[in-house]
């Protein structure tokens, strides 16, 4: 399915310098139009989550901003410096931090964001379901990037064990979960035997203690 978005639409108040919807006056509008046709504006076409996107993009615009401006909420900006991984997307089959890629570099590329992980019927895919089952997200801001990295790891053929999972996720920062449940969710999605989270069907003993239902999980130190 091709969804061709006109340059006007694609760049509507998207940070190109357009003021087309604003009230700042015709002079600004004219100047912006002039800037848009200058040498720094490049035509970019990419396939994003299976849909063709076209736009006139300032050469300096980051891929993450272009994707977000075109309505994709998966990639997030968390650090501006390539550390946090919240902007992780798949670009021609490889995962990239889309704040480290210029939109013009993605011309002709096939891009997949977290929104595309969902099953065709709109349900959660097994990895997403595993994140839900294991409470692997809290605020959800890092989640799209985590899912993209985790999906890439699971497709890599690396052994689905704790250390390889932790290594694979080290480019993605989460400030809420402490990673423990993310690691479990990824391992479970990869087929490893991981006991369901604490309290899922747990009992509260007469003395008030809660049985740790994960007592049979390997709890050796990681390194």
């Amino acid at each position, binding site marked *: 399915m091709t969804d061709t978005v006109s340059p006007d639409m694609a760049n509507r*108040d998207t*940070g*190109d*310098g357009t*003021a087309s919807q*604003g*009230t*700042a006056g015709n002079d*600004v509008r004219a*100047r*912006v139009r*002039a*800037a848009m046709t200058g040498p720094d504006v490049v035509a970019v076409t990419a396939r994003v989550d299976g849909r063709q996107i076209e736009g006139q993009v*300032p050469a300096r615009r980051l891929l993450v901003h272009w994707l*977000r401006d075109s309505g994709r*909420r998966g990639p*997030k*900006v*968390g650090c*501006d*410096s390539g*550390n*946090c991984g919240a902007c992780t997307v798949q670009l021609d089959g490889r995962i990239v931090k889309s704040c480290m890629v210029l939109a013009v570099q993605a011309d002709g590329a096939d891009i997949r964001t*977290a*929104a595309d*992980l*969902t099953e065709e019927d709109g349900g*959660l895919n097994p990895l*997403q379901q595993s*994140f*839900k*089952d294991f409470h692997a*997200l*809290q*605020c*959800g*801001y*890092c*989640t799209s990037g985590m899912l993209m990295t985790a999906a890439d790891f699971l497709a890599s053929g690396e052994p689905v064990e704790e250390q390889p999972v*932790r290594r694979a*996720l*080290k480019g993605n*920062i989460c*400030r*809420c979960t*402490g990673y*423990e449940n*993310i*690691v479990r969710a990824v391992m479970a999605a990869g087929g490893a035997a991981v006991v369901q*989270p*604490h*309290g899922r*069907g*747990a009992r509260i003993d007469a003395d*008030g203690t*809660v049985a*740790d239902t994960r007592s049979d999980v390997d*709890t050796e*130190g*990681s390194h």
Partner: protein
Amino acid sequence: MTQTTSDTSTATTSWTGQSVPRIEDDRLLKANGEFGDDTPIHGLAYVHFVRSPYAHARITSIDVTGCDEIPGYVGCLLPDEAATLTNPFVELQPEPWSNEDDRCLASGGKVRYAGEPVVAVAGASREAARDAAAAVVIEYEQLDVLVDAKAAVADGAPVLHEAVGGNVGWHGAWDCGDIGFALEHADHVIEVDELHFHRFSATPLENSVITCEYDAGMDVFKFIGGCAMPQFTIFMIGAALGHSAERIHVVSKDFGGSFGVKIGMYVPATAVALLARKYRRPMRWVETRTEHHWMGGHANERTFLDVRMAIQNDGTVLGLEYRCLDDIGAYSRYEPLGGVIWSQVANACYQIKHLKVDYTTVYTNKGPVHPVRGYSRMQHLWVVERMMDIAAHKLGFDPVEFRLTNYIQPDQYPYTTVNGCVYDSGDLPQSLNKVLDLIDYDKMRALQAERRGTGRRIGIGIGSTLDSGTNNFGQARIINAYLPFAGNTEGGLVRMGQDGSIYAVTGGVAFGQGHETTSAQVIADMLGITPGEVFVHRGGDSSLSAQTGFSGSYASQFAVTGIGALINATKKLVDEIKTVGAAMLQAPKDDLVLEGGFVKVASDHERALPFAAIAGTVFFAPGALPDDVADEVNLVGRAVYRAPLALPDVDKKYGNLTLTYATQVHACVVEIDDETGETTLLAYAMVDDCGTPINPMIIEGQVQGATVHGIGAALFENFGYSPEGQLLGGNFYDYHAPTAYDLPTLRYGSVVSPSPFTPIGAKGMGEGGGAPQHTVCAAIQDALGADAGMVLDSHNPPERVLDLVNGQGAERVRVLR
């Protein structure tokens, strides 16, 4: 796990207490959440702040004429204009400290920290705003810089706020019991010259995003973006702008973390509001990572001086005393509340009888402090834990026995502390025993002995902490007797829609704590439906009549206040449903039950009406109801929860300052490389006790998250400053937030000591109390031993550990007896 979609007709289970999967997750997993920069706004312009490159300087000129050359430049806001259009932000401290002049842009012709906003520039796009900001030319005359609290209070120090008259922002003294007598007569006295709790923050992954729309026709400012304490924000912005509170509308949607710090968002929000009004155009400011680290809010950095602890031969700790300098950076903002907040946990986890604290709030040329997870209590808890740990080592007490001896015992609750706080419940000995099992304590002691002398030494640490929750805002009067605050309430609203569906909104504003789920669990139980059938409003909205003055998510309170308010609101709705049901079913009201989405006659379940019939009648056929029922019923339950807290005695600084005290006991095993100073966590375990659980899975998630915040602070995260006042951790390269690869498996256990003071026995627990800082420091000390370097700083990167291995700090610790 399919509980949320199970057959409603058989929903007789209690949802409260179960690990129900989160309602929030589906939209977030499908990238359908709506975070700050996701909200589409027509005609949006962007704001960029021009910030000071200097830590302390006088502004000599500002030239914005270059901005006109930038395509898409909308306009700007200058400091003088901000000073004309706003009042100084309300200060919580009394005179003379309240003379601080804090505005949304640099005030009084000065900048006081590197990164302080000086000019706010608006552009039609992100790029236009940035380009225009780059065209602003500001000239400065540099002033002497203060980056050390001790230097700031020394004679002749340069002064940040001339109107305050010095760099002290507040001062208060506590003298509980008789520490002088205890120190004079105790069998042992340990003295430490100085300990330092370092500067770091929670650094939520989503930086602040503030969108402001100004409706000129209605004279209403609407703010959209993460706001952790909405009515406090309205109070601060309303007073600054001289604008009616009801014409300030604050909306939060999905919200990428706050952990306290976003309570300070009213400062930049005021500048965004002024621009939105000036240019009649919606404005959005998207904070960068570096901006967040400069001014997004640091945790209180605290230097403890002349610390003395009195201990008996049998291991009983009598008490301690210290002076401290609390470095709040350049502006007080929510401070000096930290000056009293620490005293919620005056006793820490121990039966001490004597405590003397001399607390001074100090300005320096650093980023301002905001409340951060564990706010102000973790600093005090840390120093008590360090002193306990140092005392055990120096006097040769077994580290486990020493703690067990001094812990408040399970049969002593409710326990009144030296300053009148009432610890509600707990079982610290059981928690400690459990956590030691989780790290295989005996095995690890054997490993430690085995490794001795190999250059890769092992240390085992214990950290005991409290997470005090549900503030008594009356404690603010201990800071300033003229503040009007007292007690605490939260609001909630639960209503039935025209088709019988249920909607709820709470005054608490969640940013990852799963409030939609826990709210739905509790409401579902009361209405006899499933959590999936309760539509809980996302985030917060000040226009929805669900907020009180203290609404919000901070201070570990939602499980008490937020849930309490929703319970009270649901009770009202249940009563209305039954009133209508009684009329329609011709049955006595007290013979009705709510089950599976029906109101039923308990004695005859065949006589039942679905909620849709109740709602449909109230909405569309009120004339079919008896007049007195139609007059009374609106199917909206709105209620508050009031925490039962009395005003403290301000003069004596005595009274109960928080309603609940969740406990956490952590233990860890570290390995230290003698050559590199690198600390590796071999094992880490936590046992929490937050009373009756609503959703154990969510509780465990909060414990894990708080644990990694603390581990990060203990080993990696530091907002250090150069002598010139430049922040050394301005991005995630220089400020290392832990990754999955930095951490061991976290081992979790729990103990349940229901609170006798709360609606369902639950306690607030999200902050965690900084246990990892206590635990990691204790483990490093344990690896070093008693006659060695002394761990006197909460931050221990390899370079400091190497110094410790070489004996650093030993000279600052003395056993006087």
